[in-house]
């Protein structure tokens, strides 16, 4: 909740027409700017944010530091792309704008979006950096867009010159499927030196990722902050545990790759029974507004309960369990290697499909469930992909129970 005046320097040069960030670099940048403004003004109501553009006809201050979010969003409208980015002048004008802030008690911060190549040399940038440090101005750099070694070095040198006590940060965002703003949400630029992701950041992350009515877990952090916080913390712990388990499972899978050829039907039955049971803790991340999904979960959970004793007995040793569960390992492998399009995956997918026939056969035996229903199919697909790490976690918890 540090009291801060921020100037955001936007790159609106020709390089921003490129589409390697969707929809184009400039739009991605604008979204990120909007998010940052919101986060800053929410974390402390007296914070002010200003915006300037570095390219175009020259450095131009669009809005001086203000706490009025509407003004900032309005000025982002109708910006034109063109010209070349002038990094040094942009930072100096930002520093000047901050110097004349109304409330001298605010800390000064500049956030620079560097998307195009940097034409100034390292010495000049370091000089600027030292001047910023001398006047206790912090600097955050978002390096995206054009990638070259020189640019990276120059920006790192600039950061080193400015950095005072880790108050300045640099983030390199390579082009990829996730949006620029999503990547930035988890960085210190948003969370502000580890003061804890603000409620805004968490809500924004949820909205961006899941599209669930803008709030984590359907709880408004403003109405019930402790509950929201408790849910968020337990969710993060869960995720951390899943990741640790997934990593461990990946190692196991690597050891037992292509070792086993037998798969008994009992194995698959147990596998499938373990699946839905362990996917229950994962319920929060699924969209379970669908009644049929809920019913299906309950049905499979009940059948899992019947064989829970056998599951416990069998799972004393992780490696033993993995030796038996050939399908489990393959599925884990698949989920770990997700995204890598190579031949081995294809065979794994085929085996999983074979697996699915077992699943459908089980489902047909259950009353009131139609395996051809699209909801059921979706559920199956998501279960296969997402509950693999949960299997290991469930096994570990069962081991602990046994002990």
């Amino acid at each position, binding site marked *: 909740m540090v009291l801060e005046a921020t100037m955001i320097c936007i790159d609106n040069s020709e390089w921003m027409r490129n589409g390697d960030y969707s929809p184009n670099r400039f739009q991605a940048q604008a979204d990120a700017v909007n998010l940052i403004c919101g986060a800053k003004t929410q974390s402390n109501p007296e914070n002010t944010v200003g915006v300037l553009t570095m390219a175009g006809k020259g450095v131009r201050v669009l809005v001086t530091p203000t706490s009025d979010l509407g003004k900032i969003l309005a000025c982002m409208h109708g910006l034109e792309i063109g010209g070349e980015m002038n990094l040094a002048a942009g930072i100096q004008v930002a520093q000047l704008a901050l*110097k004349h802030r109304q*409330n001298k008690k605010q800390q000064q911060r500049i956030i620079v979006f560097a998307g195009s190549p940097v034409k100034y040399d390292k010495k000049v940038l370091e000089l600027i950096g*030292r001047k910023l440090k*001398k*006047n206790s101005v912090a600097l955050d750099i978002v390096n995206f867009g054009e990638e070259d070694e020189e640019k990276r070095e120059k920006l790192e040198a600039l950061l080193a010159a400015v950095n005072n006590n880790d108050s300045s940060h640099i983030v390199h965002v390579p082009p990829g499927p996730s949006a620029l703003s999503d990547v930035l949400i988890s960085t210190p630029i948003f969370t502000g030196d580890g003061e804890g992701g603000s409620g805004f950041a968490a809500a924004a992350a949820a909205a961006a990722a899941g599209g669930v009515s803008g709030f984590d877990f359907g709880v408004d952090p403003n109405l019930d902050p402790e509950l929201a916080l408790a849910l968020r913390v337990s969710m993060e712990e869960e995720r951390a545990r899943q990741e640790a388990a997934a990593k461990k499972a990946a190692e196991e899978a690597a050891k037992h790759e292509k070792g086993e050829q037998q798969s008994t039907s009992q194995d698959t039955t147990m596998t499938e029974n373990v699946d839905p049971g362990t996917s229950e803790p994962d319920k929060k991340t699924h969209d379970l507004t669908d009644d049929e999904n809920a019913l299906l979960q309950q049905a499979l959970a009940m059948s899992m309960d019947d064989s829970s004793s056998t599951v416990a007995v069998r799972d004393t040793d992780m490696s033993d369990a993995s030796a038996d569960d050939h399908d489990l390992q393959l599925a884990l492998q698949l989920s770990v290697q997700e995204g890598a399009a190579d031949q081995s995956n294809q065979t794994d997918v085929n085996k999983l499909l074979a697996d699915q026939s077992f699943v459908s056969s089980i489902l047909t035996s259950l009353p009131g469930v139609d395996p051809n229903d699209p909801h059921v199919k979706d559920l199956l697909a998501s279960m296969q992909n997402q509950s693999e790490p949960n299997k290991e976690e469930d096994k570990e918890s069962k081991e602990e129970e046994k002990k």
Partner: protein
Amino acid sequence: MACLHDHSCEEHDCSSDWSLYKHVDLSKVSALNEAVSGSVKSVFRAWEQRLNSSEGYLESNEGDPELIVFIPFTSDVKLKSISIVGGADGTSPAKMRAFINRDGIDFSDAQNMQPVQEWDLVENLQGVLEYQTRYSRFQSVGNITLHFPDNFGGDTTQIHYIGLKGEATQLKRDVVATIVYELMPNPSDHKTRAETGGGLSQVE
């Protein structure tokens, strides 16, 4: 009339003279270009402790000898003289420029503005030298900004102690938290002190 301490201190009781450090608002003291953030607070001590900088001292960043120290007081003070203990090996400051009752002075402001008073300092490692002020100008000091542009050739500037001598009045300055610029002038907002009963007029 510098107190050169060729007499024993018990008679003179120097420490009570240099007691303005008690009226310094330590939480709001700040410095620009300090190497360690917050180290400036350690330079305000009692007179007896002036050479004891075990708790830290103020040092500027490498290769840059300029320093600005902003000192707000808890009440208005009348400042008689200032004593500075610098560091050895050319790290003592060589010049001092003072600005009164101004907020948020940074290096470009300090270089361009005329100070209220300027002194050439000498290396004063024992803390026996004091620099007198033009007392008439320092009658009601709510905060003072000291700018040290130069040192005696060292790589950094070190300040181990800043002593302030004078009297504290019980008055508090009018503190305006944020200034809101008005769109239209409103005479009732601008009653001068002459109308309400006299006093120094403040020019910001």
